[in-house]
């Protein structure tokens, strides 16, 4: 059947190592790609594309970055938004001031962020758990301070850099759909890369470190190297996501946007979505990006009946309530729900 493997035995290495072992996933993935590349650009409204889908992709990318660090390698970081800011500012500086082409400057922003992230990952070699979380919280404040105070970065007292006009090979990226494709292509490329990274040797090392770090060291995992690589890769993703968010959505790099609340939101995304899963990054980003807007839209209908000061607080209440609800229903995140459904289907209609 399409929702389970044929039998329980694999007859080739290729089928054993397939990303999507069951047809349901393979088809689902193809359908998703078709939706993203064809249906959405053709049929979705400009409002939907710019305000919901582009930020969704960017935050999914960033949440996946944090998932590599927190979900796979087990190193908690509560300063991830600051790394997005590093990416945003450095891409604007590379592209706007030095005239480096767009794609290389976004990648360059990722590399710059990875360098900064590796530096802030150094404490992880000595401390772990909650103590590391506090150490990474420092990165949030240090980076914010540096961006605000070094005029070369922030471009003067206003602390904001406006996005320059975007061109790829002289082709202007100025409409919502073009920006959408830029964000989408980047997202797909890096998600594919990331998915394979966590399935490979490196991902296994990370998971070993996450589960029992001294055991991992005994079986030959180089803790120092692999932890730092986790920080580098994770912040690379954050940098790319920050750059894309500012180029394709906000249109300006402003430090106030990447404050500690955004860091907490990213942490929330991977917990709600599912720690240590790729799919969970999407679910979590979807939850945190689209749900408040959806609730806000829904509540707008009650504008005439309920006083608006109560209404806006209701939004926060509903959103908070939903977080609690999802955590009670499925403590392991929304990705686990999908997993459970698949597991049940495997035995359906004769469960034991």
């Amino acid at each position, binding site marked *: 059947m399409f929702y389970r493997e044929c039998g329980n035995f694999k007859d080739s290495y290729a089928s054993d190592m397939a990303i999507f072992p069951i047809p349901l996933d393979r088809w689902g993935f193809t359908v998703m790609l078709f939706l993203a590349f064809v249906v959405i650009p053709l049929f979705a409204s400009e409002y939907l594309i*710019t305000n919901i889908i582009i930020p969704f992709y960017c935050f999914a990318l960033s949440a996946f970055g944090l998932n590599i660090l927190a979900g796979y390698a087990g190193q908690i970081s509560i300063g991830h938004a600051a790394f997005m800011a590093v990416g945003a500012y450095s891409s604007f500086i590379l592209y706007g001031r030095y005239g480096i082409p767009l794609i290389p400057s976004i990648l360059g922003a990722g590399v710059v962020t990875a360098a900064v992230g590796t530096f802030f990952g150094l404490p992880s070699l000595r401390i772990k758990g909650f103590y590391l979380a506090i150490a990474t919280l420092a990165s949030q404040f240090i980076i914010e*301070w540096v961006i605000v105070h070094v005029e070369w970065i922030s471009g003067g007292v206003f602390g904001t850099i406006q996005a320059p006009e975007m061109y790829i090979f002289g082709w202007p990226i100025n409409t919502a759909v073009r920006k959408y494709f830029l964000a989408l292509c980047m997202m797909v490329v890096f998600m594919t890369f990331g998915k394979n990274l966590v399935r490979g040797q490196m991902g296994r090392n990370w998971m070993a470190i996450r589960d029992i770090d001294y055991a991992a060291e005994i079986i030959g995992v180089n803790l120092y190297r692999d932890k730092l690589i986790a920080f580098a890769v994770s912040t690379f993703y954050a940098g790319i996501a920050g750059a894309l968010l500012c180029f394709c959505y906000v249109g300006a790099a402003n430090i106030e*946007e990447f404050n500690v609340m955004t860091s907490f939101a990213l942490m929330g995304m991977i917990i709600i979505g599912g720690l240590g899963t790729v799919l969970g990054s999407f679910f979590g980003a979807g939850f945190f990006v689209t749900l408040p807007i959806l609730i806000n839209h829904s509540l707008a209908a009650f504008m005439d009946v309920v006083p*608006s000061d109560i209404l806006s607080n209701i939004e926060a209440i509903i959103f908070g309530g939903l977080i609690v609800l999802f955590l009670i229903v499925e403590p392991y995140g929304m990705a686990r729900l999908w997993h459970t459904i698949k597991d049940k289907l495997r035995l359906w209609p004769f469960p034991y």
Partner: protein
Amino acid sequence: MGRKLMYTFFALVLTLSLVAFTGQAQAAKEKKKEGPTQFVGILAYRTGPFAAGGSGFSSGMEDYMELINMEGGINGVKYVFEECETAYNTARGVECYNRFKDKMIFVHPLSTGITYALIPKATKDHIVVISSGYGRADASDGRVFPWVFPLPTNYWSQNTAKIKWIAKQEGWDGKDMSTIGKYLKGLKIANLHIDVPYGQETKPILNAMAKKFGFKVRHFPVPWPGIDQKAQWMDIVRRFKADWVINRNWGVSCTVPLKEAARLGFPRNRILGVWWCGSEEDVLPAGPAAKGYYSTNWHGVGRNFPVIQRIIDKVYGKMKGHISFTRVGSVYYNRGVYAGIINTEAIRTAQKKFGNRPLTGDEFRWAMEHLNITAERIKELGAEGFMQPLKFSCADHEGGGKVFFQQWDGQKWVMTGETMEPMKDFVRKMIEKSAEKYAKEQGIKIRDCSKVD
């Protein structure tokens, strides 16, 4: 598992039905409207750390629009407004802007971050950005920023007015600019600012004035969110021995200086706040420690104005108000009413030229540049003493409003009755320099204002 699945489906169905219901309600709402209407999208923040400012401002503006609607609209054109919650978050603000951008003709971003993000977007979409007393100071240069109006005065103007006011407290007569230096010389002024871009904006102008008038200024940064300012205050009082302190904070960090000053025995009537540190919400938590504290403003406070009385009678009399009645007449509320008056007067100006119908962004921008609110008109509006005359032009997007001063008497804000004209030429030079630099960086062609009608 079955239970879990059921819960999930239940949540899903609930969400979907909510969305579907909303769509229907919205459609029903659209049909209900009659006659020509002017849409106003409001970027409000009634939640989050700065809810006091956001809720007061947006409710004031909404109540004024409600009042205009009750009095028959602007020449028959009624306001229709919708609110969108930003929670003071830039990304959410951009979303709200995009939600409304096809319908609205002007926007009050109500946050520095959102203003910065919206300036290029609104310029492209032909929507006027009105950043009342916040945002980029150099946007006052209409040659470079045709779509931005930081009215009635910006941060830089405000600080020149503050220095003039300080000189006046030191014995200056308040008129003769040639003698002001004598009273300022050797004075020590501490600029206590929150350490984010907003807080840093006034450093260049204070430094320039210090050089010109011979007073000493030192900047004391307060790290965000500024709940602890002990170290800064020890420095200000014991080491720098400041004569005056400028309190340039935002939200909770506005209140802390008052308590710290009381602890160290620094006279509160020597602290002068920015206009975002001059509301009831800022001083009440400090209790008796706040008594005597001064702050700037650009409009009147309290309910003793005919326009506020009209809102109380008509809007609150019919239970149509948008905020609890106790806050009517508070600083942020009145600020919203002020914004409502500016919007309405600009629409009236545009209607004179383009006819009594809903306007487009371009028409509204033309009206803003030709807006002239005279003293007589203010009297007609019932806002005498509530606001100062304003006049805009192609080059001057600031309107040239004077700065008000107010003092906290322990119970309420009392207007001191003085208004200070900013040092216009001095500020203008810096604004033009900064705006031209921006134009060069962004590749904007500077408008020639002599050729614009």
